[in-house]
């Protein structure tokens, strides 16, 4: 059984100005106090999520909508345990995989094969598991002998294929996806969609942040809207096909 529960979670983000990132200003602040302090210690706190409560269980497929900067990515990162809330509680049970900015850990100097292992390890696989994914990735990416060449020689479309294939080669119970469709040629997009669909069907909890109402309707049963850091469930029927 997988579970993802947020109890009144608040996530606050410090935005450091160039000045507060500087050691010199922090030291000056110690010495002078007063005047410079206001400037040197200026840290903007952004409350990206405020008192969010959500309880997801097996079978929940959730779509997140909201304007740019509404906090979708922050919410996904908090779900993944990357961002820690300053208040509230996150309880998560079950293995997790994220598809955010994919390709983390890819080194262009390495061959495609080496990168499959590297990215796999960083995603939490063991070396043996990562190796066992190779056949599937070879098959999906259709990169053939290119996989033996350094990734630096790939076109951006080929790199994208490889990153996508590795990112989606996992079988997690909880899958979190930040909008990332729309790469590669038409035939590949079709294939990518099919792979995504299969992956989503194999997971127990799925959370997907997107602006595409079409995709949200296709993959998700429940829709939540994020607005100014607050989360409301809305009816899926309010999503209009074709709207962005």
């Amino acid at each position, binding site marked *: 059984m997988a579970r993802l529960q947020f109890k009144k979670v*608040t996530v606050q*983000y*410090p935005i*450091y100005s160039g000045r507060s*990132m*500087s*050691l*010199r200003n*922090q030291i000056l602040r110690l010495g002078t106090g007063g005047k410079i302090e206001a400037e040197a210690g200026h840290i903007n706190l952004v409350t990206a999520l405020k008192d969010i409560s959500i309880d997801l269980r097996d079978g929940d497929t959730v779509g997140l909508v909201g304007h740019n900067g509404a906090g979708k990515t922050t919410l996904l*990162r908090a779900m*993944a*345990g*990357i*961002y*820690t*809330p*300053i*208040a*509230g*509680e*996150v*309880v*998560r*049970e*079950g*293995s*997790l995989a*994220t598809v*955010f*900015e*994919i390709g*983390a*850990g890819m*080194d262009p*100097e*390495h061959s495609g094969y*080496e990168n499959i*292992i*590297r990215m796999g*390890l*960083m*995603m*939490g696989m063991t*070396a043996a598991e990562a190796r066992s994914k190779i056949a599937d990735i070879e098959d999906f990416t259709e990169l053939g002998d290119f996989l033996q060449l*350094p990734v630096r020689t790939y076109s951006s479309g080929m790199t994208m294929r490889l990153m996508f294939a590795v990112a989606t080669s996992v079988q997690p*119970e909880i899958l979190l996806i930040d909008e990332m469709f729309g790469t590669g040629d038409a035939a590949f997009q079709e294939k990518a969609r099919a792979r995504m669909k299969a992956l989503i069907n194999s997971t127990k909890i799925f959370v997907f942040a997107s602006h595409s109402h079409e995709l949200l309707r296709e993959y998700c049963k429940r829709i939540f809207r994020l607005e100014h850091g607050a989360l409301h469930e809305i009816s899926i029927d309010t999503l209009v096909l074709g709207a962005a």
Partner: protein
Amino acid sequence: MLESELALYAALQRRLGEQRIDIVVHRRDAPLCDIDRETCLSGVPLRATPPPFNTVQQVVGKLLSANRAIKQYADKLLESQKPIFMTTGKKESRYAGITDIAQSLKRWRVALYLAWSDTRARYRRSVLGPFWLTLGTAIGVAGLGWIWSELLKIDRAKFIPSLTAGLIVWQFLAGCITESTGLFVKQSIIIRNLQLPYFLHVLQLVFRHFVNFAHNLVVYIAVAVILAVPVTWDTLLVIPGVFMVAMNLLWITLLFGMLGARFRDLEYAVAALLPLLFFISPVIYRPGYLSFSARLIWLNPLSHFIEIIRDPMLGFSPPWFVYAAMGTMLVLGWGMTLSLFNQRRNRIAFWV
């Protein structure tokens, strides 16, 4: 049957963290936990009486099997791909640092693999590969050894081994320290997108420089053979020496990595100061060469880092206070770094 119940009990304890759970037993033959799993997991505290035991033997037996079950279950939890994860606002983050380090140490092989793979990537398409490091050090030693031995008026056969040892240890130290300040910033894409414990990056960095150190060691061995450096039992002290240095470098890298992520000036400050440190540390010379400042030089912590490895390489044991100083730094350094890492570990994702 009992074992599985104890396992469930252990799981519950883990799950609920600081909340006390006691288990209700109504009948002797009843299951240890008679509440369904769901209720337990939702965190309802239960009242309890301990299971009745008849004899000491039984108690010991049950304790042993409980211990075994808990161990097995803990192993299973840590091993399995289904981590049970829980994070709360302030309460839990007290142990965030230690948890991170424990998770990293469990996966040290990953760090080693990545470090090795980084080294290979850097020298891809070159014929000599990582042995360019070796060659660079060899050329440096030959050139510096020739000139400085004349300048310092010291016999080459004595000076060159000491210089070689000093240089390769210095490269290990300087490599880790220079890169440490930008460590988390450079890995920001990984930190913001994947759940990888942060200390793994630290391990990876220190491993990578250790690989370089091992390559450079070839130069020293060649020099030692050519110039007939004595090999004694004290030479074996190289091993604890390198170990102490590596352990100290781990906290330094972690601390500087954290500070460098928060205060971006540190990277430039360290880069500017290190070349100076090279000259005031006993790399080219040895503390004994200084007539007036021989005592003063030991105030530089890096002197201890160098001498704890160099003395055994030259065939004798370092003075006792070198071990004392390194041990003190190890304890104090790790203490300080751990407390800071525990407090601030969860903020690093926002800094990078």
